[in-house]
């Protein structure tokens, strides 16, 4: 279970990234975070779990345990893995309704504008939509 609120975790991430001035160092940190993403079991990397609309390949799956959602995800690119790891750090172990309501604007706030340029933000939006849709399924169920 996640004891911090979503907003608190988001703020914590923004503060961590503020420590770096040089964009190269920010990316280096993001890549380190990506490398720490727990491995997604191969049998979950199905076509149905692929998120459409991303430049890189992204898989995601979710389970509900004690009323809370736990995601597993992976990507074939390290930078995307870093972004996924940040999203999962904020959202894993939350109630479905919390996830659906989450603003998730911390990615804008960490000031990595290249990460969120027009082309790439479409991929990010697809990722966030899919994450919320997975949470929505548990509410309907």
């Amino acid at each position: 279970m996640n004891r911090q609120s979503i907003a608190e975790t988001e703020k914590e991430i923004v503060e961590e990234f503020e420590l770096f001035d040089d964009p190269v160092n920010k990316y280096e940190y993001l890549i380190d975070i990506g490398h720490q993403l727990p491995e997604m079991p191969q049998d979950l990397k199905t076509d149905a779990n692929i998120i459409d609309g991303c430049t890189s390949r992204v898989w995601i799956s979710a389970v509900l345990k004690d009323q809370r959602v736990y995601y597993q995800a992976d990507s074939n690119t390290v930078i995307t893995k870093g972004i996924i790891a940040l999203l999962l750090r904020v959202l894993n172990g939350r109630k479905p309704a919390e996830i659906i309501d989450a603003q998730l604007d911390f990615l804008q706030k960490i000031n990595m504008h290249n990460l969120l340029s027009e082309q790439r933000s479409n991929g990010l939006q697809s990722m966030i939509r899919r994450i919320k849709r997975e949470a929505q399924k548990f509410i309907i169920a």
Partner: protein
Amino acid sequence: MKTQAGNNKIKSTQIQTIHPAEIRKEFPILNTQVNGKPLIYFDNAATTQKPKVVIDSITNYYRNQNANIHRGLHELSDRATQQYEQARKKTADFIHAKEKAEINFLRGTTEAINLVASAWGNQFLQQGDEIMISQMEHHSNIVPWYRICKSKGCRLKIIPLNDVGELNMETFASLLNAKTKLVSVAYISNALGLINPIQKIIDIAHQAGALVMLDAAQAVQHTKIDVQSLDCDFLAFSGHKMYAPTGIGVLYAKRAILESMQPYQSGGEMIDKVGFDEVTYNELPYKFEAGTPNICGAIALGTAIDFIQDTGMDNIQRYEHELITYASDALKTIKGLRIYGENAKNAPVISFNIEGLHHYDIGSLLNQYGIAIRTGHHCTQPLMDFFGISGTCRASFAFYNTKEEIDRMIQALNHIIKMLTK
């Protein structure tokens, strides 16, 4: 470096060696900072930067000359018409066309290929006919042919590649037959920089009775083109890849072929007489330039051609060859780096991947160092399928790039590899 002995084509007033420091002064954008670092622009195969003379030509046109061309009786219209037609003459001379009426100003290479596929294809293709392209084509030299073949019941045949990614010329010759109506290939591959043996392709295709279209989008800025000596039937290129603005491009075709073709689009400019029962079309090249054309773009293309001619294509080619050789040698020092389609005679375009790393990560990180390359499939998915990859990192150079910039890319790549493989 001295001018090659016996090459009397280079004007005595021309610079005989490229001095990148001097050339770079002509391109204001090269002073830009990206992510706090000086911009290194290695995405020239996508579009080149513009020299001051071209930018000034655009500004000057709108400040002092803007008017609609042809049929205007006033001074400004006369001036604009003169400049526009002068640009056509410069373009004709640039590729050594027989006459300026063979130069059609369009939006770019894509529109030129679409025009031929649609206007020529609809008129001359019969069910069962064949069109031939190659496995290395840009999507813009695949999709128009795919569509016209689909609608006319024709067959699209593909020239395969050999192990290293070059056109398989033996198979090409064996694929040709009496049903082959047209062969359309890239002069230089956009993804790999390979220079195709186009003279052989033209000669062999003509022997079989097929017309030849050349996609010269990656060639006009790197090599001298002589359409008469090549004897190609169609040739297409874009202004923005040769230091001119976006939105202007050229379709060259032999007069007899253009005359035999019906118009592509219709409207003003392209007509002779219009009645509700009968319309007659204007003479070449206006027949294929419906509506108000990109007057400013064409004039600026003329300026870009002057700029290239003043620098000297031989000088450009020699310097760019130095750059690509240097880059290729330097990239090979990186462990696990594979270059695709490498050939000693390549244009200044180099495609590579690094073992275990994704091109998306490499491109995104190079950008943090202020280095602009292109990653992905480069609009050549069938070529990527041939190599069994989803994409490559492509660095493409222009004559304002330097060896120091290449060194900085290599340093950045070494740092990035460490970062990604920790």
